[in-house]
């Protein structure tokens, strides 16, 4: 077994006196779907923000074993002057948001082109004078954008405004945009929130296809348990900021601690 893609060691996240995550450790396997679940307020999104570099964890370390060897997320964010969450994406962790954050007044293709800013020719002069290398980079970027639009069944909407797409399509567009950054790990924050059953089914197919066809590692936060059980190979359960269960879907579903957290069983019963 190779090393896991992402290792989280004893991460604690505090906001002043409030402890959002306490001593959380788990790992994300390569080429698999890992789900992070838990009741509301369990600290899932906080954990997510630590992984994607939007927060700096108070204690502990998050190590990405990506393309360039092991890399501590915390040091990327706190790097002087040039540091920041954008470096985490460049290292290979892409994310989507719980409340969709598309560039609404830009077209669908442009949304995907922005995501590819590292491979397009950003030089001011090459663009103004339309050098051949600029053209080639642009053409490749547009083709890559169309590739992901086809993967997400969005090709027909390519030249529409992102903001005028239906909600379900905006969700898939956000995933396509994250994939355009060429990530080693894609983190989806409640991708099924607000979707109807048929859209949820389509979404689960998309995520499974990412995993099987593109060998993409996925970390997902989700409340829809049917979806989680269907798509994930590995589930981590958080409650009150701590990991209460970690394992395969079958293991987690039968774990009395998880049942207690979700259904609210009295203390004595759990201990018994």
């Amino acid at each position, binding site marked *: 077994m190779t090393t896991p893609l992402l290792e989280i060691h004893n991460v604690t996240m505090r906001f002043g006196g409030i402890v959002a995550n306490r001593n959380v450790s788990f790992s994300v396997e390569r080429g698999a779907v890992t789900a992070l679940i838990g009741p509301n307020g369990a600290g899932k999104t906080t954990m997510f923000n630590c992984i994607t570099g*939007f927060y700096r964890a108070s204690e502990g370390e998050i190590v990405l074993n990506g393309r360039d060897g092991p890399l501590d997320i915390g040091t990327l964010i706190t790097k002087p002057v040039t540091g920041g*969450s954008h470096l985490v994406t460049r290292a290979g962790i892409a994310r989507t*948001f719980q409340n969709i954050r*598309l*560039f609404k007044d*830009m077209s669908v293709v442009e949304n995907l082109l922005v995501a590819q*800013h590292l491979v397009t*020719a*950003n030089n001011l002069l090459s663009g103004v004078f339309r050098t051949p290398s600029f053209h080639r980079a642009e053409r490749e970027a547009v083709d890559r954008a169309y590739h992901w639009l086809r993967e997400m069944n969005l090709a027909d909407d390519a030249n529409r405004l992102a903001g005028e797409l239906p909600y379900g399509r905006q969700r898939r567009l956000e995933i396509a945009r994250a994939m355009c950054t060429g990530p080693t790990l894609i983190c989806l924050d409640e991708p099924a929130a607000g979707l109807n059953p048929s859209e949820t089914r389509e979404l689960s197919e998309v995520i499974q296809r990412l995993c099987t066809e593109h060998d993409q590692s996925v970390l997902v936060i989700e409340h829809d348990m049917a979806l989680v059980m269907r798509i994930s190979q590995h589930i981590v359960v958080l409650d009150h900021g701590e990991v209460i269960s970690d394992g395969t879907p079958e293991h987690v579903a039968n774990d009395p601690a998880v049942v207690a957290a979700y259904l609210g069983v009295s203390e004595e019963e759990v201990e018994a």
Partner: protein
Amino acid sequence: MQTNRLLPLFKQALLTFTVSLILFGPISGLVLEGFSFRNELTRAVVLAAIVTAGRVAISLVQMTSLGQALTRRMADSGVGVTVMTGTEKSPVLILALLFVAGLSLPFFADKYFLGIAILALIYCLLGLGLNIVVGLAGLLDLGFVAFYAVGAYLLALGSQYLGLGFWGALIIAPLLAGLFGMVLAFPVLKMHGDYLAIVTLGFGEIIRLVLNNWLDFTGGPNGAPVPAPTVFGLEFTRTAKQGGVSIHDYLGIPYSADYKFWFIYLVLFLVVCLVIYAVERLRVMPLGRMWEALREDEIACRSLGVNHVFTKLTAFMLGASTGGLAGVFFAVHQGFVNPTSFTFFESALILAIVVLGGLGSTVGVIAAALVLTILPELLRDFAEYRVLIFGVLMVVMMIWKPRGLVRIKRPAFFPSTTTDAGPLPLTAKAEVA
């Protein structure tokens, strides 16, 4: 049927009359005289009646079919952004015609009109520069005039202390203004919206106050003279300086004071065309797209690996550079600079140009710049009411077309092949990483 229509009309008229009477009553109905008031209420009533008549007239027009069609069209054009279909006709012919017309303008226009045209083009440049910062990158900059001043004073003081000429200043000004932009922007770009606006406002005032108070260096309120431009060492004066040659002697044509303005106009026109081209290219370039993405959603940009501080910095610097360029032309056109040309009112005017033109729209900004500089000249006959008409026009514009004169169109993109290229994504990525 008839009463059904008349009753709401009457109610509306009554409401309008009452409201305008309340407004006009104290403002023009009571005239202060020493320590007492003179009663002029009839005047207020007449004003209110005029407003009411106008309101009724508008309502009557709206009832006709023509009026209804008009309102519908007005409402239609208010809708914001559209994406092009990729099948639009190329506007090359129109652009070429406009270019030739612009180039040949000096041969038709008199000196007065040419002066206005130069001013209009300078405001075009300023508008295009601020449009990069405000319209594309979404950073509210209230001190843009500072960079304009940097460009203008570079030429004035550069010639005084370093012997810098027009052409030298034209090359150095964008760099220097860009540097000033960087100095200002680097510490403040972590701020957002209103805070950034206030810092830039302060920066604009600092530059003006320094220019005003540093008597030894800048000449303070007395300003500084600016030398006339030269072409290949040829001068525009009637008699050339010691060792120089004036252009009319060289070409063997009679002297005219207009040549200088022809020259400034033509160079300015070419520079404006170049800047327009560059800005239009920026819209479809990665850098321009990143600016716009940053305006739409900064957090999403960071999640895509965009370095938001650096990207904002480039927008600020490029905007500042364009402002500096405009400053050089302003200085050489006026032949003299002093700090009163660089007040906050200028910043506000440039911002008005960008907002009226439609944030981010190049054509809109150019149109707004032309309208806002030529209109005050045309309204000279109404000198007293000029600012009033100007203000009314702005209010009306913002009500009818809140998103600016010109509707923004986004470019369309199509794949190079109709079939899927396969696993292109990650391999191409790896080359760069």
